[in-house]
């Protein structure tokens, strides 16, 4: 279980105070207006932002003292996930070995993972030769190959067109079935993940305003407010 309790962060023009829980193996969709603190929440879990107070644990392990690379966390950003001079396979390999010195078994593992995200035969392509959706598949493959149990997806498909975006969300759903991971995913379009997500949290003004199953959130009293907030972004 991921447990966040009263994690406070302050900047001159913004402050946040997060408390929430995500059960192990669940997919949690994080929704809310732009500038409300969704990305900051994910960056804090990944270790790019350090809260001044509060606790952050995963499976009972305190994450706060750990460097980003030492946390049991893999992250996929909206853009610039891949190094442009490395091939797709090399970019995935970084999730296993930052030095890129691989064993034969690891090479097989990387091939399998590219296969799993639907990129069989793309191993020698460079990011410049792939579409935006294909690049995000590579980033997803890297997050999965690292074997880290907590995966953060920070608006991973926002720059894709709606059809492709739903395909990618389906892909996340399939991959979950193959490998038990806990996923937190920020998203602009809550209806896309309503069927897939186990949990949905609404973040606004730096706080987790509501946390429940998607149907309760979207159909509940917050529903109209969310629809308004989301349509504004």
């Amino acid at each position, binding site marked *: 279980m991921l447990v966040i309790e009263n994690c406070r962060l302050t900047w001159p023009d913004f402050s946040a105070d997060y408390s929430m829980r995500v059960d192990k193996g669940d997919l949690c969709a994080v929704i809310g207006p732009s500038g409300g603190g969704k990305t900051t929440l994910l960056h804090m879990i990944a270790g790019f932002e350090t809260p001044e107070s509060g606790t952050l644990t995963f499976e009972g392990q305190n994450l706060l003292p750990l460097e980003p690379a030492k946390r049991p966390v893999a992250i996929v*950003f909206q853009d610039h996930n891949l190094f442009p001079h490395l091939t797709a396979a090399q970019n995935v390999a970084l999730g296993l070995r930052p030095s890129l010195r691989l064993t034969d078994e690891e090479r097989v593992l990387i091939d399998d993972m590219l296969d799993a995200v639907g990129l069989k035969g793309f191993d020698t392509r460079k990011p410049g030769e792939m579409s935006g959706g294909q690049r995000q598949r590579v980033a997803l493959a890297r997050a999965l190959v690292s074997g880290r149990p907590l995966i953060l997806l920070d608006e991973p498909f926002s720059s894709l067109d709606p059809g492709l975006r739903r395909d990618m969300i389906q892909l996340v759903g399939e991959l979950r079935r193959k490998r038990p991971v806990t996923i937190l995913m920020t998203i602009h379009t809550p209806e896309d993940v309503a069927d897939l997500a186990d949990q949905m949290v609404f973040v606004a003004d730096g706080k987790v305003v509501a946390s429940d199953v998607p149907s309760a959130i979207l159909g509940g009293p917050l529903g109209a407010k969310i629809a308004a907030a989301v349509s504004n972004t």
Partner: protein
Amino acid sequence: MKLPHPGSLVAFVIVALVAGGFIALATVSGEGPTSLSIGPYLRRVLAFSIIQAALSTLLSLSLGAALALALARRRFPGRDLVLALLGTTMVIPTIVAVFAVFAVYGRSGWFTQALSFLGWTDSFSIFGYPGILIAHVFLNAPFVARILLDSLSLVPAEQWRLASALDFKPSHIFRHLDWPVLSAELPGLAGLVFLLCFKSFAIVLALGGGPSRSTLEVAIYEALKIDLDFGRAAWLSLIQLAICLTLTGLLNWTLTRPPTAHTIRGLIKRPDARNGSLRILDAVVLAAGSLFIAPLALSMLSGLAYISDIVDADLLRAFMTSVTIAIIAATIACISALALASSARRWRVALRSPRIAAFYDFLPNTLLAVPPFALTAGLFLIVRRFTDPSAAGLILLPLVNGLAALPFVYRSLAPRLLTAEERYGRVAASLGIAGMNKLAIMDWPLIKRPFGAAFALAMALSFGDFGIIALFGGQELVTLPYLLFERLGAYRLDEASAIGLLIVIVAFLLAHASGRLSHAGD
């Protein structure tokens, strides 16, 4: 024990070298500064330094701005070539510019001969202000024009369409479109040109024509080389340092925008291009500019006929010495800049301490202010305890040249490192890519071209430099610029022209390679 970051090591070494050099220089005379008696002399040197630099700046900026506006308004065959050539005067070594002034305005120069052909027989002396101003304006005005033209071309096309739609008169266009650009650039450029002219050495040494017309830099050189008065040199150096530090501080403040190199040529049709009086004005400006710049530039080609006469063992040795020094200097400059820039980035991004990062950013710029002679002399006093004085030149020349190139190299590498961090820093951090691995995987692919470009630029600067070689040059250590200086001193202008051409060709090739590298792949 954890090793210190390479950047803090480099910063420490630079601070230690500069401070050590000054302390060695200031303490060697033992009997306090003889300088207290040099009041009138100092006043004269200071006044001359400032007046010639101010006049050079005023003339360079006026000509440069006029040329930039004329070139922005006009389209003519060969314009692209003119633009390309404008950018290259920056890399003409000062000692070659000295030769060009001799060749055109000297006793038997083209200009002087043309005057006497027209019946003007009064002797015209280039020594003093005329020669110095001609050389400074020749080197700086085209550079100013190029920078201003680049900035003028960055005015968005929409604004030009708006100007056409609103039927702006030429005066409106100048006020609303050109002037905002010029007024943003001119203070920084004025500071830079003033600093370069204030520190001018080779030009003032060769064209000053007497001790009454010395810049501080020349005065320091004379104190060291001729009078062997280290105390006075230290005193003059401190004054020079104080003035230049103030200027670089101001420059640091005004030059926050990174210089742009790209020009979108010929895309915009300016509505004021059809105005009749502006046509005449531009024609006059372009003709005057060409008449001033072209002969000086062409005089450098006159050496072509004598190239075969100068090739001998001495020349080859000088050439190899210059190349070797340039390579070592460029290596020092590039490695140091990379280490300092990565420290600056680490403090700015990972450790969130912008003030310490600003120190790393400012350190290379302070090297613009340190008088190279004082630094060299101070280090010489230290080095001579450990090694044969004749070997000191070989150690100090690449070191001081490398430090002199550091500010320029830093300026091109540091922003690229920050860009790499902005794009990939978090990915790298989450994947555990750090240290040398980070340099290899994340940074190097993004900076290898700018690194190559900076290396070539540093080599070009060092290759043509006639500065501290004036202290060490002699029987044992001869670089190409020193050879040129010797030939000029002996009035062997034919040989000088050939050596100058050789230096210019190498410097241009390096600068060209640098430009190609820095533009490729963007």
